[in-house]
């Protein structure tokens, strides 16, 4: 999955000459947390709601002397210039790992230096929801613990096919030296599937041991 497919294309961006107050308003009105800063279509920085908050607090400190003077700050003063960007050809995993390791909330996506989109934590979560098919009616999750042996996975799939069960999604993860298969299946009669799998020698944990 590529960043280009999951990113938000309609990016709300600011110019370095906009005021901080404007930036704050735009963040609040659109319920977003990041504003790329663009000059002549090219990305020059990024402002987050944290940057705005810091600036406001700093100004308040200066004003503690009792003056009512309010400075009109510009985005240019507070933006981060050294921006980590993605390209539409990067993968979701690239973006996910950067967001995870650097604890960022969003990454602007550029082609050359031109801003073409933004990918945020919310986009990554949406990708997860879609991939696992968590949303929408008609599926139910079951978990099957498998030894680290690919033939067991094949047998599992064959068994489900034999029972004519639709597999809506399948994720295989390591689990205590074994594998656990998270499946979403399209049937109401889950109990029959579980007992069928148990009868064929598969380990299907009880609901109280459900991995979540």
């Amino acid at each position, binding site marked *: 999955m590529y960043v280009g497919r999951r990113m938000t294309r309609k990016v709300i961006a600011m110019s370095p000459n906009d005021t901080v107050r404007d930036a704050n308003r735009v963040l609040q009105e659109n319920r977003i947390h990041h504003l790329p800063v663009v000059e002549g279509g090219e990305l020059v920085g990024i402002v987050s709601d944290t940057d705005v908050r810091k600036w406001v607090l700093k100004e308040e400190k200066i004003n503690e002397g009792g003056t009512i003077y309010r400075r009109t700050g510009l985005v240019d003063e507070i933006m981060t210039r050294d921006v980590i960007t993605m390209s539409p050809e990067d993968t979701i995993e690239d973006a996910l790992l950067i967001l995870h390791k650097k604890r960022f909330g969003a990454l602007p996506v550029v082609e050359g230096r031109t801003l073409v989109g933004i990918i945020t934590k919310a986009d990554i979560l949406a990708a997860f929801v879609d991939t696992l098919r968590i949303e929408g*009616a*008609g*599926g*139910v999750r079951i978990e099957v613990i498998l030894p680290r042996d690919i033939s067991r996975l094949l047998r599992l799939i064959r068994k489900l096919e034999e029972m004519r069960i639709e597999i809506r999604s399948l994720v295989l993860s390591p689990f205590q030296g074994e594998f656990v298969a998270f499946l979403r299946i*399209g049937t*109401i009669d*889950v*109990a029959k599937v579980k007992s069928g799998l148990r009868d064929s020698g598969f380990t299907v944990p009880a*609901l109280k041991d*459900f991995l979540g």
Partner: protein
Amino acid sequence: MSLRRENLPLEGLGLPHPLSKREIEKGFETLIGENRLFGAELNPDIIKKEGEKRKFLVSRLPSRKKLLSRWERIFRDLISPACLFERASTKIQDFEHRENMLLVGKDRIIYDTQIARGSDVVGEMTLFFLAERDRNLGLLAYLRGRRNRIVYIDHIRLSQQSSGYASSLFRYYETLFHDLGFHQFRLSASLSVGKYYWAKEGFDCLDREEFRRMKESLRDYVKERGLPVEEIDINRLTHAYDIALFRKDLKVSAYCNAEGYYSLKKDEEYREEKLFPLGKAYLLSAKPWDGYKIIYTNTPRRTGLLYSPGYLSHRPRAGHPENHKRLGKLIEAIRKDDLQGSLVLLEPFLPDMRSLEKVHSAGYLDEFRNNVRTGKKTFATVDCSISEGSFDVALLAAGGVMAGVDAVMNGRVDNIFCAVRPPGHHAGRRSAMGFCFLNNIAVGACYARDVYGVKKIFILDWDVHHGNGTQEIFEEDPLTYFCSIHEHPTFSFPGTGRRMEKGKGEGYGFTLNLPVKPHTADREFLDLFEREVIPEIDRFRPDLIMVSAGFDAHKDDPIADLELTERSFVHMTRRICEMADTYCKGRIVSVLEGGYNGSSLTSSAIAHIKTLQGRSEPCTSEEG
């Protein structure tokens, strides 16, 4: 006073305590002293009095022992003979009973009287009290002494002006016999005059064929006159009562003759034109018919059971949980459980496509029909296994809820349980899943709104699965509250119904999802129900309560993981009955959804029905 009324009607089936044999004997002696007590023999050849229709003969009084045992069998010693006699002959309005007597026959006790107003005899009446063995009950129940105790008005003749008295008398008797624990109160009367009045009072044709003919001739009349009446409106008439109330908005002419009889056609004799609503005009002019009415007296509420053997014709593949046997078993159990006699039995009708299109898209209905017609084995998903009859049966299930709404809204029953299949609450506007094809309860709710102008409808879904179809259909509708309590979507089909789903647009706040964790049992489940569901009903103040009653949250049900017993269903039913009494004149339409273990479905559904009837001890199984 020997008739004790310690049980208020709403408190259920509890009966007063039996009297001692001595008191019963004293009652007999009083009547003998007054020369009011005789024996009776059934003998069609010798008829008492001149020219009357009574087929019994006054004879010698049976022995004391026989008197006592017969009285015990029929009245269970709940009232003394003298007291019964006094109660039965109470003066109502200006009407008195004269020359009345009590006769003790072999299988029945008879009350016979003349009815007088002042010095004029205006009519006569014969009551039969019987304790009949109900062949549906089975031998065991019979040996335990379970019998249907029935009162018949075997014969009644009253001058025409006395119909006001008759209805007061019937209502009085209905209460009296109810308190004595009689199961049924039947009236038979040949309806040559006052046909409209009797139909309105709930009398139906004794012969179903007769009723069918009546419907046919009404249809012909409508066609002949080119009246703006839809075919479907006539199709859904199931009782003479429905005809009496039919199309009050549409006035037609009827012609009256000198004696006060009516005809729909004008001629020499029937000249005087009068305007009446269609149904009334039709009944006033109808041919005489034999009428009967069963007044169900042994439950505090009149509960309907809607069922058709047609529901068994949807046959999914072998081994499918939603098979015809689950419903067959339930109906069989209702028949055997002394329950059938106390329920008003109703039948579904086939709805027209227009009323279904209020809920489902025309394209979806076509696709479903085509899949069935072309002999496909499943529709949309593997779960939705279909057979030749599936489309028609699904229509009949939706029409069942519509007929249920009819019965509740026009007052024939207080509440109703619609034993339909296939179930419906997973079916969305354009989707079938989880054994469901058409959303029966949604079709019924739209029908209640369109036909009866019901404003606010509260749908409670206690099937163990989330009612995603019903939610989808009503999520933007602030007048239809959808509340579903179900196993948590992470663990259970269909994976929706989280708390965050609260409705959309104008309907936001009118959807409530209450997921519970696997292995939740009665107490926790009912705590949640009391804490969250009841206050919402209070806040919403519905005009009609509908229930998607699945019984698969029962601990014995294989399909899901909750641990409820019958007690939960009884408790929830009782509470919604109270809510319905407060806000919507007791009106509840309950619709069967899931429940796949034969015995837990049966015991839970029966407990549910008995609670709808207002009985206080609805559970029969040990755990309940």
